[in-house]
């Protein structure tokens, strides 16, 4: 990989497009989305037309034929303006669509990946359960093969994107048997929305990401054809670990964008806010905060792009993806905390954008593997047992 001090022209143009779109189309709606929690249908449809909902997938499957780095840049630019829009795209691509692209049969790709990549349908990925969070292998959901059908029973919690009018399919991990070693055999099976026995709960009320669709899913004797298995039976755990490598890079990008948005607001405010008859930006205490934020963001961005470029180059990147996710999410929490600090009492008020960035930041240290889990992954990659 070349040293990335500047992106190539194609990526620069793409960044400009997503930035213009975020500023002109998303920005005017951000307050409304935050207050009402309404799902941004018009924004998501327009993103589909621009190719954003399928950036990394090949054109023959309805995608834009871009790479993972371009995708990371798009998520970063969206998050700079609105975290809910960014996570909707992230969960759709990295989690919902990935299993179809990486492990789906040709037929499954044609049927599902194409409309997903075109942004005509939204996808979700159901891994987390009440008993299986960080300990994702502790899946309790079962799928039994009976008369050529999987009969699914279980509960998934905190699932992104399943309940909108555009949602079409969820891929879940389920226990499909016992291995000779006595361990659980976990497989990935997709369930179309509307399948009898697939129940979707109302939206959770969340600290942040108000306009993102997060719900609990319930499967009660839910039957889908045997052919809804994705990839090989028993490969479910391996598959989602790989999808998560990609997802973590995108979450890192989301953290970089969120921090960048908060940083820009802070610089603007610090230059305008006068106390002690001077703009607070003239106080070294504030300057140092901004200098630290800028440095942190630059480091996180560099690491994120490196991990994305490694994924594009198809070299092992589990460690780098985890490092990017860990560092970027924790730096985002620091940066947004300082942003609120720079805004003083105003930063604590709902109508100021930094309070939204601050609340959007926390989940980044939790979703797709908590910071603790990232440190466990990195330590394992370092050969520590």
């Amino acid at each position: 990989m070349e040293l990335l001090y500047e992106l190539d022209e194609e990526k620069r143009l793409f960044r400009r497009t997503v930035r213009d779109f975020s500023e002109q189309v998303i920005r005017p709606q951000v307050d409304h989305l935050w207050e009402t929690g309404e799902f941004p249908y018009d924004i998501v449809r327009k993103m589909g037309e621009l190719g954003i909902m399928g950036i990394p997938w090949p054109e023959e499957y309805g995608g834009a034929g871009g790479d993972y780095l371009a995708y990371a840049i798009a998520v970063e630019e969206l998050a700079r303006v609105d975290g809910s829009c960014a996570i909707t795209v992230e969960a759709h691509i990295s989690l919902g669509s990935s299993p179809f692209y990486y492990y789906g049969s040709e037929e499954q790709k044609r049927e599902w990946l194409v409309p997903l990549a075109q942004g005509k349908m939204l996808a979700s990925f159901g891994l987390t359960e009440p008993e299986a969070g960080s300990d994702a292998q502790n899946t309790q959901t079962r799928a039994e093969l009976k008369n050529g059908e999987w009969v699914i029973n279980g509960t998934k919690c905190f699932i992104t994107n399943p309940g909108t009018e555009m949602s079409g399919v969820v891929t879940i991990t389920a226990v499909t048997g016992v291995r000779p070693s006595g361990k659980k055999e976990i497989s990935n099976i997709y369930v179309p929305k509307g399948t009898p026995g697939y129940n979707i709960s109302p939206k959770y009320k969340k600290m942040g990401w108000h306009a993102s669709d997060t719900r609990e899913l319930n499967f009660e004797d839910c039957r889908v054809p045997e052919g809804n298995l994705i990839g090989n039976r028993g490969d479910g755990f391996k598959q989602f670990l790989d999808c998560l490598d990609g997802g973590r890079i995108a979450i890192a990008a989301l953290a970089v964008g969120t921090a960048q948005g908060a940083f820009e607001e802070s610089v603007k405010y610090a230059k305008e806010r006068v106390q002690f008859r001077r703009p607070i930006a003239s106080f070294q205490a504030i300057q140092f905060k901004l200098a630290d934020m800028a440095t942190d963001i630059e480091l996180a961005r560099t690491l994120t792009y490196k991990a994305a470029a490694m994924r594009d180059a198809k070299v092992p990147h589990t460690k780098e993806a985890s490092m990017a996710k860990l560092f970027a999410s924790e730096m985002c929490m620091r940066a947004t905390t300082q942003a609120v600090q720079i805004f003083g009492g105003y930063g604590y008020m709902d109508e100021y954008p930094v309070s939204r960035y601050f609340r959007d930041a926390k989940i980044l240290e939790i979703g797709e593997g908590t910071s603790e889990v990232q440190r466990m992954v990195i330590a394992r990659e370092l050969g520590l047992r």
Partner: protein
Amino acid sequence: MKMVVCVKRVPDTAESEVHIDASGKDIDKSRLSFGINECDNYAVEEAIQIKERLGEGTVTVISLGDKDSDEVIRMALAKGGDEAIRLEDEAFKGGDGLAVAKALAAAIKGLEYDIVFTGALADDDGYGVVPAALGELLGVPHATYVKKVEILEPGKRAKVGRELEGGLLEFLEIDLPCVLGIQTGINEPRYASFKGIKQAAKKEIAIKSAADLGLDASEVGEAGSWAVLEQFTPPVVGEMAEILEGEPDETAAKLAAILKEKGLV
């Protein structure tokens, strides 16, 4: 219909502080971001929409500028432009609107065209000269501040609405070929799709020097300009200016009194 769109890369100064550089003849651009001139973005969109409406035609994008202008050109290609030319020469430097129009006219003369689009005004120097000068140099009719274009007969005639004060539109029929200076708000510029950007990356941008266009260095750039920039100065607070101080309601009352006294309201 063959259409040509002239685009310019300009610094984005809306949200940044602007400082005059050491030469005194330019602003410090080192911290500014750049993009397409706002009117030009609408001009690109108008040409592409006409092509789409008629179901035929080509859009050639032209820019005078150094390599950095490629980004602006490619974005126009990504949105639906077909071909691109960039005019680059040391001799083009320091030109006023007329000198720029001379270079553009020389490039456009060699092309078949029905409509040449430009922006009505550049965000950076704001001369607003290029569309009219270009029309004169090409010997074709021209209209500026155009906010509506209707093709009456492809290749023959168009009806255009010009924006006058207070949002009034003046409609006129114009023979083609012609030059139209496009005003913002005429349409809703699209965003380039990811696929469009990828395709644009493969298109060639033809580079033309003054010599390629048959122009002598004395005709273009600073040498070929009627107006030469001498110096930028920030506006000084003159003796005529009176700064009103005090609480908002006091200053408002003072201002109202002055306006009344001078018979302005």
